[in-house]
């Protein structure tokens, strides 16, 4: 099985308060931020690695995982880290962060998919910076491929994937024929979430994404990482989404102290109007 994983780097979500918006409100100031891979994309990579191995023999590869990201030269750090975690090859589509939107990324990915011909495209359900939740869906539409979003479990079958999706009140299970686009949710990295046809159903993975082990870090340098021009994938670079302004969320107002319960009830009734 060959899997293409789309990875995006995002401003470190643990330091989200460092994101600055200049007074003009034109765009978000990304200078000086620390970058991390989008956590949902890391989960997608973990799922892809599990699908291309026998979980009891993780050192033997049984398929290919190609990771792709869009961004400037320094995003190669994110790709190298993915290679060190176990991905086989990497592609960087040279682009500037603020000249992309979900539609353009999906169109470029479509062109890349036509070249790479993966069996599955895996990615996070959304990136935690813009929370747009679009690329997977648009890509599936453009490719006219089956799609499963918010995957919590994936089981490989011959020529198909059985995808469990957590929905209100239960789990909906879809069988998607390959090739397909799948976007993943948090639970995909639980110990029994993903099984390739080779992994015995008794096998339990460690919870969470795997660590990059030392030998893999050393081997990552020798794995191929190529650069592709955005224009070669998407000649039309017009954006569908335009941003009109950014503003920080208003600071929370200080609370007020009430004398007693009756004042509280009266305020809830008359001012907050929640009772």
């Amino acid at each position: 099985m060959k899997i293409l994983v789309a990875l995006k780097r995002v401003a470190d979500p643990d330091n989200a308060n460092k994101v600055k918006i200049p007074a003009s409100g034109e765009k978000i100031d990304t200078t000086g931020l620390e970058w991390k891979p989008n956590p949902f994309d890391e989960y997608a990579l973990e799922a892809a690695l599990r699908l291309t191995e026998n979980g009891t023999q993780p050192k033997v590869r049984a398929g290919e995982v190609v990771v792709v990201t869009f961004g400037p030269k320094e995003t190669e750090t994110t790709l190298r880290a993915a290679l060190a975690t176990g991905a086989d090859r990497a592609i960087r589509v040279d682009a500037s962060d603020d000249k992309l939107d979900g539609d353009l990324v999906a169109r470029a990915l479509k062109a890349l998919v036509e070249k790479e011909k993966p069996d599955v495209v895996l990615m996070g359900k959304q990136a935690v910076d813009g929370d747009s939740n679009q690329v997977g869906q648009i890509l599936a539409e453009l490719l006219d491929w089956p799609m499963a979003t918010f995957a919590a479990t994936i089981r490989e079958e011959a020529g198909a994937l059985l995808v469990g999706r957590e929905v209100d009140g239960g789990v909906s299970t879809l069988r998607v024929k390959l090739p397909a686009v799948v976007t993943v949710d948090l639970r995909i990295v639980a110990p029994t979430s993903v099984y390739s046809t080779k992994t015995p159903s008794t096998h339990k993975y460690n919870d969470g994404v795997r660590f990059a082990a030392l030998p893999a870090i050393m081997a990552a340098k020798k794995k191929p990482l190529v650069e592709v021009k955005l224009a070669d994938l998407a000649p039309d670079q017009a954006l569908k989404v335009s941003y009109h302004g950014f503003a920080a969320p208003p600071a929370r107002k200080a609370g007020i102290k009430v004398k007693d319960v009756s004042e509280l009830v009266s305020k809830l009734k008359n001012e907050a109007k929640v009772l």
Partner: protein
Amino acid sequence: MSNPQASQNRYRADLREMKFLLFEQFRLGDVLGRAPFEAWGVDEASMVLDETYKFACEVLGPLNSTGDKSGCRLEGGRVLTPEGFKDAWTKLYEAGWKNVSVNPDWGGQGAPHALFALVEELLSGANTAFNMYPGLAHGAAEVIQLFGTDRQKSAFLPRLYGGQWGGTMCLTEPHAGSDVGSSRTTAKKLPDGRYQIRGTKIFISGGDHDMADNIVHLVLARVEGAPPGTKGLSLFIVPRLRVKDDGTIEGSNDVAVGSIEHKMGINGSATCVLNFGENDGCIGELVGEVENHGMAQMFKMMNGARIAVGVQGVAVASSAFLNALEYARDRKQGPSIDHWKDPTAPRVAIVEHADVRRMLLEMKAKVEGIRALIVKLALHQDMVHVHQGSDDQKAQYHQGQVDLLVPLVKAYGSDQAFRVCEMAIQTYGGAGYIKDYPVEQYCRDAKIFSIYEGTNHIQAMDLVGRKLAQRGGQNLQEFLGDVAAFVQKNQGHPTVGPYLAELGAAQEALAGTAMRMLTWFQTGRMAMVPLAANRFLEMMSAVAVGWLLLEGAVLASEKAASLPNDESSARDRAFYEGKRHAAAYYARHVLPEVRSHAEILGREDRSPLDIPTDAFASL
């Protein structure tokens, strides 16, 4: 994560600071990519730190306080380690962090020691007690790699480096602690060339555990008829379970755990009484098949082990400091001193109070200075490696500095680590004394560092009795020369220049005291030497640490000046400013102590010698 017993990770490290030391101050990049470090680049080294830190926080950190609470148990003659340790051991060897610097011939990645020292800091800081087990296995493997026969290497090394087997160092006996030479464990040569071992060792870390299939004890013992004292000691490989030539396990080797100790700290590390050959069935083989070389072989290993203890110190102290800093930014208490009379003034975070800032800066300066000294030492080790065979003079210089700095790293690193942990508790106030916060455990764990691997007085005697005189005193001269050259070169430096006078004066006071001690040796006043030794070691450490902090500050001020003056570089600017202030604090508050120590020693006071033992107290 999946372990229900696991608590929260409290370990904190400052990777920016570690990378500054490696790549900016000590320019590790210059030796990477070239023999013998061809496989390494800055990217790999940096990723190793990132990933080890992740591993430390996610796998080892959550087991630190749980391991402290539950401790180890002895059941049916076997030691059971705290819940989660076995799983962590497996994950550690899968990840490969113990093999960063191991020779590629034995499955390692051959990285510089300077990188490995920081990897070790991350592992030890997250869980000191746990990391002792793989640390001792690693140490035992290094001895066999250096001195073992080819057969011993192929039988033991892959399994010791690979984590299938554990290892120990067995020196201490009930009557032989600091005085290793009075060891009573015996070895009787058997017709097949192997030896029958009999004796009791105490305080053996990792003497037994449930994480590996076998444990390889390295045991100091006296062959029948060998001379008394350290000269007659030989070193034996004594596995818990007997091993065939091909390395497969044969069965019991009559090594029994008598008991385990109940301790102040490092409670997750089993400290064992081991009885060898109670039933005359304990067989050992001689390391390298040479008798009476045990001490020399152990000494080689002890260099590494002593550096590792200094690393343990800085590891724990660093996390204590960073936790105290986090707490101090959060805890609100009292108004700013500007409004001290106004009861309605807003309460401020304690980090705003001068005395708390003093403690934080002192902790920062000591932690970062000792870490710099460790990396410096490790880099000297690496440079021996680089120059060996091509430039023997350079290799000798670097080896000399290694020998000289080892006791400093071990003793100053461990003494100051304990003090930093104590200061971290003080920074917290009452909360620091409570087990909800990590610093009280850090303090208990850290106390052992000044005792094992040779007490700090033994280190001080090693420095003044052996190391100062090595190569006719050249090692010390070269060290003093390096410091003097730095002072000379940077005298006019706009920001750091003013502090260099302190360093220069401290260096002179140190050199003067070394001369004074030499005259004690020459004029038969030997008894003065041990009285002065610990203080001398502290003086020399302060000079070394002050020098390296100031060197870092010179660099930091250059780097800060080249930053663009805008928001984007605010973090870097703050970092470099921190380096400068830490150096300034150390230069003004610690370096003057060197002069005052020199003055005290110059008075040649003998009162501890003169007071009659009966006069200490009326016991």
